[in-house]
């Protein structure tokens, strides 16, 4: 598998998103490189989720260019877009599991949609190992989403996102609403899956621990665009007020210390 680390998986150029009279993004540029975990941070209402929705095609931007895997995404017809969609997986904030299907059936939905010829036995086996890979206990397979806890729902969501062996994974606040132990385990899971499957991860988060623990680079959304992108030390060297407050605030410092102590131990 030829992996060139400089290749951009996602390219966003001069993106503009407008809701009514409110401009959410203007002149926004962003590159996501192959096999990296990119964290996207920003205050509430800076349009992190809108950016993700624009990239995956759920929101038509007012202006701008978006390409994923080198394919332009705006104005594509449904069939062409399908080929690109097959290559990514998405975990929505509330996991967005289909409530009338069991966890295992949820995982099988994308496979059934794109590869209806795969026989049921193999399909069950695929669902089975995806579920275990996502860190769910084996009993979770036949359960319905309403019977799962928040953390298990997110894991089931990951299992579904991984169903088609995607190259690119979008995660919208994966650790929000999880307890610290669950959140740390989830970070670890993402990191492991990324390493094992060579995934590129686009990760929206508010969780400073997640940023320090697993992100290769961090993009900061403020003033309607990406004001800075880089590793955390690179960002700390900038004197943008929001970035300084974000990383230098009490919570930011605590997360940083925790990482240092872990590194020393």
């Amino acid at each position, binding site marked *: 598998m030829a992996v060139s680390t400089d290749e951009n998986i996602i390219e966003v150029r001069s993106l503009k998103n407008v809701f009514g009279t409110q401009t959410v993004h203007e002149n926004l540029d962003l590159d996501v490189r192959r096999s990296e975990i990119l964290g996207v941070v920003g205050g509430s209402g800076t349009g992190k989720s809108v950016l993700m929705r624009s990239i995956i095609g759920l929101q038509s931007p007012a202006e701008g260019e978006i390409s994923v895997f080198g394919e332009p995404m705006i104005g594509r017809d449904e069939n062409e877009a399908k080929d690109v969609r097959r290559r990514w997986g998405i975990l929505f904030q509330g996991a967005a599991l289909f409530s009338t299907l069991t966890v295992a059936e949820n995982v099988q939905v994308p496979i059934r949609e794109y590869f209806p010829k795969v026989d049921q036995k193999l399909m069950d086996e*695929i*669902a089975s190992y995806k579920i275990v890979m996502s860190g769910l206990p084996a009993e979770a397979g036949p359960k319905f989403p309403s019977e799962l806890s928040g953390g298990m729902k997110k894991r089931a969501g990951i299992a579904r996102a991984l169903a088609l062996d995607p190259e690119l994974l979008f995660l919208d606040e994966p650790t929000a609403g999880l307890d610290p132990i669950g959140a740390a385990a989830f970070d670890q899971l993402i990191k492991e899956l990324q390493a094992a*499957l060579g995934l590129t991860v686009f990760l929206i988060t508010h969780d400073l621990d997640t940023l320090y623990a697993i992100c290769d680079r961090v993009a900061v959304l403020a003033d309607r665009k990406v004001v800075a992108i880089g590793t955390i030390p690179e960002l700390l060297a900038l004197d943008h007020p929001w970035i300084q407050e974000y990383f230098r605030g009490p919570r930011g410092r605590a997360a940083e210390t925790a990482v240092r102590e872990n590194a020393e131990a």
Partner: protein
Amino acid sequence: MTGTADFSESVEGDRHVLRFTGPMTLARIGTLPDRLDNVANGRRMTLDLSGVERMDTVGAWLVYRLARKTEAQVTGADPHMETLLDQVAQADHPVKVRPDRTPPFYRVLGQIGGSTAVAIRTLGGLVGFFGALLISAWGLIKHPRRFRLNAVTQQFEVIGIHSLGIVGLMSFLVGIVIAQQGAVQLAQFGAEVFTVNLIGRSAVKELGLLMTAIMVAGRSGSAFAAQIGSMKLAEEVDAMRTIGVSPMEALVLPRVLATVLMMPLLGFYAALLAIVGGGIFTWLSLDIPPVTFVQRIREVVPMTDLWQMLIKAPVFGLIIAMAGCFQGMQVEGNAEAVGLRTTSAVVQGIFLVIVLDAFFAVFFTSIGWL
């Protein structure tokens, strides 16, 4: 990178060697799984992956599964494939995909028992709900300051005023249909004149109100169930309770009260429009002038018909609103429950209204209100 996954078999020394070629990914897997199931299994096997272009977890799973079954040796895997094979090997715990199925006979038995239990529990629940409603109404009578006038008037608008158009149109058309059908049948006896009796009495006594009740159950009963149900899902009802606001007082009472008060008005209005519809038909088709029609209506429709309607209407309103609110309060779990409960609210509301209407008919006849 085109073509599908493939393999060739050969015998080298004492080993049976399977050489895999092409992309071993979900999209390109083709018939590989079936063919692998049929591979002869006698000698010791070697699985050679050096010819594989790409591999994803599905390809790795197939190789792992075969290796596990035949205790084969895997060679020629590059580091990426090694990681994938490791990953799927670690994830190899059988997971149940579907809940256990019970045999059909037991399932049918279970369903009959289940729905009987549900029916009995629902009836009990409705009675309990009625009790809770009375208690909170009594609380309101003792503390009239807590009465939510705004909520009630808003429901007046939604239940009453917004449905004037549809209820009116429907009744008008029903009036025409009764007149037309009645005229055709009565003409066989030369008694077209009695069409007026038919229109007047059936509209005032039964149809006006019954059609209105069905429309209100469909419009408002369902809306109550869906609104309260969504609020329960979003924990709004729990939030109310913890703040000290009684959901019964804030959500249920205004809706029930508004429906109880609106039903007689809507029923009367519906009866009136049915008579108008019938009147226009008789005028155009039977040449009975409107003045005569109105005079005949006043002669043939006794006052007791109107009383019957006005007595039944609030009871119907109570039942429809209670069924809606009760079902809404029963919502639990997921969005699907809201849909199911909304359906039940309408079905129960209409069913109970018709059952009670039959009782009322017998009762009123026996006290001499023919």
